[in-house]
Structure formats: C-alpha cells, structure tokens
C-alpha cells in the first residue's frame, strides 16, 4: 500500500511538473501579450509595430468508433504575434491542441524566429520554411489549410545582389501531420539539414523577342545518426533553368540523390527530372508538367524533406520519392466574358519496366500503382447577378487506398448562385459514383446557402450514401447520412465566427466564404479567427 502511495505521489509530481511547465509557458505568453498591449501606444510612436492573429477552435463530438455514448471535445488554439522594430522582426507562435480522449496525445509548442532584414542581407534564426527550386531537393513548407507543417529550426541567411540570390541554411527538421483526428510528429529525430541555393537572372536579355532566362543551382546534405555507414552522407544536388519567350515559359529542374540505403547500408543513387511548359494569353492558358524520378526521397519512410512534386491536381503521390512518373495538362479558357472553361488531365504512376517510356506515361496497367485524374468545368454568367457552374470529375486510384486495389470516382456537379444585392442565395447538387473492385456505392449531396455580404452566411447541407461497402466501415464507420447546418458570422471584418452542427464526410470544403480541409466529423464545431 505504501508503494502504491509512492507511485501515486511520483506520478503526481511528474504530472504536476509537466503540467506546471506548460502552465508557466502559457502564463508567460499571457504576460507577454499584456506587456506589449500596455506598452503599445507609446511603442507605436517609436516605430514598434505589433501585429498578430488568433485561431481558436472548439469541437464537441461523438466518435462512434470509440464510444457512442460519451461526447468528446477538442480545443485547438493558434496565436501568432509579430514585433517589428525598424529592420528587426521577432515572431512567435503558440500552438495548443488538447483532445479530451486520453488515448490521444495532446500537442503544444511555442515557435519563434528572430529576423534581421536590410538589403542586401536577410538573416533569420528560429523556425522557418524553405523550398529550393520546385522541391526536388528541399521542400519544407507550411500548409495551414491542410494542417501540414514541415519546418526547419536553425539559421537561414540570404544575400541578394547582381540579379542573384544566395541562400544558406542549417536546421533541424520537424514534420507535423494531422490525420485520423490527431496530430503526429513524423520525424522526431536528430537529423540535421544543411543546404545552399543560388538563383540568378544574370543571363537576362533585353530584346524584342521577350527572351529571358534564369538559372539555379543547389546542394542539400543531411546528417543522420542512424545511418549504418555514417561516412556516406545523404546528399542531394541539382539545378534548374527557366526560359521565357514572350508568353511561352519553360522550366527544367534536375536533382541527384546520393545516400545510404535504408537498413542495409551502402550507397544509394537516385535522380529526378521535372519539366513544365506553359502558354499564357489573355483569355487562354495552358500548362503542361512532366515528372520522372527514382530513389529521390530524402528523409524517412513516412516523411520527406524534399517531397518531390506530383503533377496532379489533388497532389496525391503514389510512392513519394521512391519511383514515380507522370504528367499533368491544364487548360483554362474564357472565350467570352460570360463563360470560362477548365479542363484537366493528369496522371502519376509507379515505373513499370515492362512498358516503354511512352506507355508508362500514358497507360495505367493493372499491376501498377497510380492515379488518373480527369476533370472538366464550365462557369457561366447568364446575367450580371447570376452564376452557374457545372462540371464532372473522374478519378481512378489504383493501389493507393488499401485494401481496395482499384477505385473509380465519377462526380458530376451543378452550382447556382444569384446575388439579390442585399443578400445572395447559392444552391448546389452533386453526385459521386464510386466503383471499386469489391463493391460500389453512390453519394448524393445537396446544399443551400443564404447570406448577407459582410454579415453572415447560413448553409444547410445534406449528403446521403446509398450503401456502405465493408472495406469502408473500418475507416469511416457505417455512416450513410451527413446533415450539416453552418453559420458563418462576420463579427467585424477582422473577426469571423463559424458554428457547425451536424456531420461532415470530410475532404475539401468551401463554405461561408472560406475553404478548408475537414476531417470526418459528427458534432458541434466553433471556430473563431481574428486578425490584428
């Protein structure tokens, strides 16, 4: 009994220590805000600028996979603050995510950065994001709309001059993902990334042809303690050339990977190519992207520091950095003021040695993993106050979502909007027909919104699935109906409150004037965003 009491005491101490440290951090932040607010009137006169934003999110929901009787809640809080004084900027971010489910770990962090910027020098220490070229060598980015935070912590220096920019970096990477209703840090490692990037427009010509060119070169090196052969550094190097001729623009990037073969050791070699070309005219635009790489992935199995880009619209990658080949074509045209048309045809797949390069690029054979996306959309304005948009998306996913081998989605949709001046009405209909190798189902959705500019938008949306295939039950449960009521309220132009009640199937949702990626959900959500 004595030992039990000791364990309890020990737990209490460690728990209070942990809780106490967070309490102190949060307290420090509140005091920090109080101090700057008190000093702000006089500070403004002294060129001190204080700005920031806040996003607070509260969920009250039921997770049928865990317990249908008890409601759970989540709090997410993200506060950003910036202090600028002449050429110096201090930036701080406080992030806090607290789920009520004790099976999930809460996440909190305080990020900061200090920056000195005066042409031609820009030096930053702290948390930062960096993409070299189009991302073949290094792509550490923040995607707040999709809760994907890939950052570096360390030093970044930029030097500008002679139509060139030299960037030097050193930092410890941190990749945070939000999936399956929780945040996870995928690379809790001691990895260290160092790199240099040079972009120059020194070969620019002033000529009647509008011929312009720029080139770039880069080198990235990673230090990993778990490499079996530490002398064989993991490194990527490459370059790019950009050539513009009037409205026609071409870009080519190459990267080579020299690293340690995971778990086995020895030298791993890989390379990758990216080519894009585009024609931009008033009323017409076409862009073509091509990608081909093998063993270019830089990082661990679940995370990448370079994240080679995919040429498809949804950004799905079949086998990030291991081997992929694909292309994407996008055509956008507005032949008349009242009509615009968009057409997309994109494909990405794993390499297949049995096929020729041409076949590999265009065909999706049964034994290959891949995604084929096709879409067509038209937007018309029959009158100045009305808008009709309609289209169809067709997606084939092969060996992407386990346990389904092949899934085909076809989604026709129609949206109508009429602006009465003092208020507007928007209505939408869509149908998603899903065919898979195991079973088929159809989702039908209808929505109607009424809104007043700069005041509110009230949306009612309902979606129904005709049947649930067994493979989907494990992932999303047996839900077949998602009714949802949303009120988006502009408290002022700088404060927006969004209240959602009902069920969400998940995915990219645009409503109340804002687009976000939503996780599957059933319950109540309140989101307050402020900017100051």
């Amino acid at each position, binding site marked *: 009994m004595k030992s*039990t009491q000791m364990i309890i005491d020990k*737990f*209490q101490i460690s*728990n209070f220590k942990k809780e106490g440290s*967070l309490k102190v951090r*949060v*307290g420090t*932040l509140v005091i920090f*805000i109080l101090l700057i*607010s008190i000093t702000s009137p006089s500070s403004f006169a002294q060129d001190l600028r204080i*700005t*920031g*934003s*806040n*996003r*607070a999110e509260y969920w009250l929901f039921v997770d049928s996979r865990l317990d249908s009787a008890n409601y759970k809640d989540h709090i997410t*809080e993200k506060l*950003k603050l*910036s202090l600028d004084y002449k050429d110096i900027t201090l930036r701080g971010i406080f992030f806090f995510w*607290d789920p009520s489910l*004790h099976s999930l770990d*809460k996440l909190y962090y305080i990020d900061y950065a200090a920056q000195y910027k005066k042409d031609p020098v820009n030096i930053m220490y702290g948390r930062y*994001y960096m*993409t070299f*070229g189009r*991302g073949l060598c290094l792509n550490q*980015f923040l995607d*707040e*709309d999709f809760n994907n935070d890939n950052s570096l912590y360390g030093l970044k220096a930029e030097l500008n001059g002679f139509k060139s920019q030299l960037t030097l970096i050193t930092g410890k990477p941190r990749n945070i993902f939000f999936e399956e209703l929780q945040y996870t840090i995928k690379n809790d490692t001691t990895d260290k990334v160092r790199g240099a990037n040079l972009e120059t*427009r020194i070969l620019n010509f002033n000529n009647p042809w509008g011929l312009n060119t720029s080139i770039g070169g880069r080198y990235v090196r990673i230090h990993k303690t778990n490499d079996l052969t530490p002398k064989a550094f993991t490194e990527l190097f490459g370059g790019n050339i950009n050539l513009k001729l009037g*409205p026609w623009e071409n870009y080519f990037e190459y990267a080579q990977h020299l690293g340690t073969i995971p778990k086995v050791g020895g030298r791993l070699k890989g390379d990758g190519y990216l080519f894009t*070309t*585009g024609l*931009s005219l008033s009323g*017409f*635009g076409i862009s073509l992207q091509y990608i081909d790489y093998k063993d270019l992935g830089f990082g661990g199995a679940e995370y990448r520091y370079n994240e080679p880009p995919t*040429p498809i619209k949804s*950004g799905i990658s079949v086998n990030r950095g291991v081997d992929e080949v694909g292309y994407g074509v*996008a055509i956008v045209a507005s032949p008349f003021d009242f009509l615009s048309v968009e057409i997309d045809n994109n494909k990405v797949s794993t390499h297949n040695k049995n096929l020729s390069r041409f076949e590999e690029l265009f065909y999706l054979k049964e034994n290959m993993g891949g995604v084929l996306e096709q879409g067509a959309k038209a937007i018309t304005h029959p009158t100045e106050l009305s808008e009709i948009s309609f289209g169809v998306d067709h997606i084939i996913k092969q060996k992407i979502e386990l346990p389904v081998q092949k899934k085909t989605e076809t989604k026709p949709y129609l949206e109508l*909007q009429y*602006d009465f*001046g003092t208020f507007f009405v928007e209505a939408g209909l869509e149908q998603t027909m899903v065919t898979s190798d195991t079973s088929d189902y159809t989702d039908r959705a209808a929505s109607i919104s009424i*809104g*007043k*500019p*700069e005041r509110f*938008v009230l949306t009612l949306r309902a979606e129904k699935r005709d049947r649930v295939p067994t493979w989907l039950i494990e992932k999303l449960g047996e839900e077949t109906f998602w009714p949802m009521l949303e009120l*988006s309220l502009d408290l002022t*132009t*700088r*404060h*927006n409150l969004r209240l959602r009640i009902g069920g969400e199937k998940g995915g990219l949702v645009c409503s*109340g*004037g*804002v*687009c976000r990626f939503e996780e599957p959900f059933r319950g109540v959500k309140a989101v307050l*965003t*402020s*900017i*100051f």
Partner: protein
Amino acid sequence: MKQDNRSITSFAVSSRKRNRDLQYRPWIALCILFVFVFAHAQEKELPNAPDFTLQDVDGNTVCLDSLLKKGPVFMSFWALWCKMCIKELDALKPYYDEFDSLGLQMLAISQDKARAVPKVKPFALSHKWKYVVVLDPDNIMRDLYNVQAMPTSFIINQEKKIVFVHQGYKPGDEEIIVEKVRCLAGKNCKGDCKGKCHE
C-alpha cells in the same frame, strides 16, 4: 495488487483529466478572450504595413515601397484550389479600370505551393485578370500579414497604414471593397466616409 494497479491507472487518468481541465483550459479561455479584446482594440489603430519584396509571375521584383509611390495598394491572398478567392478576384475584375484611374495598385498573392506554380500565370491570364500576380510558395507574406483564412484582403494607404482587412468572401463583399477604395480616393462615397475609411 491488481486492484491497486487499477486504482493507480484510474487515479492517473482522472488526475490528468482534472489537471488539464482545471489548469490549461482557463488559461486558454483567458488567452482567447484577451486576444479578442486586444484585437478589437487594435482595430481602432492604424498599424504600419510590413515591407515586402516578391517576384511576380514574370520574374519581376515587386516591393511595397515602389507600389505605394504610385498609389494605395489592394492585395488579396488566393490559391488555385480556393474557389472563394477566385470568385472574389473575378468579382473585382469589372472595377479594375476605375481603380487604376484612382491610382490603386492591385496585387493577387498566390499561396500555391511550388508544384502548382506553373499553373498560376496561365490561370490568371486566362481569367483576364489585370492584377499584378505574385508568388509566395513559402508563405512568407502569409506570415508577415498574419493571414488565418483564405481569402483575406488588405488595403494599404499611401502613408503605409493598413486601413482595411477583410477575411473570407461572400458575393456582394466586393461592394464594400469598392466603397473603401472610393473613400480612400475621396470620390463617389455614399454617405459619411469618415468612419468607414479608418476601420
């Protein structure tokens, strides 16, 4: 012993929950409330707009100071995947010539990541946007202006003060932006402009 272990686990869980509920949440609630009040008070102020230097889709350098020499600046954060952002920029298209005559510089700041960059210029030109379209794949501008939702638009006056911030877009919101711009130029303002110009 088994019962002891169960009581420890039960105590640990309930203690953790209680601590979390009692200790963090009031701080968070206080923080949110304070930020709300602070942010509301800040609205009365006219903060300076942070300086920036960006590349437009043609590779030209665009900086705030050179834009402000020509007139006030309107800028909107958008992305190819953001329907509402595109609707906002399309809705402002008919006012471009009027804004241009008032000296307003219009900037569309693309938040598309590096992989989508090649599509930005063809998309903007095909939509017949005359705005200066700049690229921000590393979200430097989004951090600088503390943007939390897409789209968000700003108007900066020639004294380099942010005089208007607007989050999101709903059909009809463009009228408010138009009113602000006309106000700023001192032209065609409906009613009393004084309060509206310095929100």
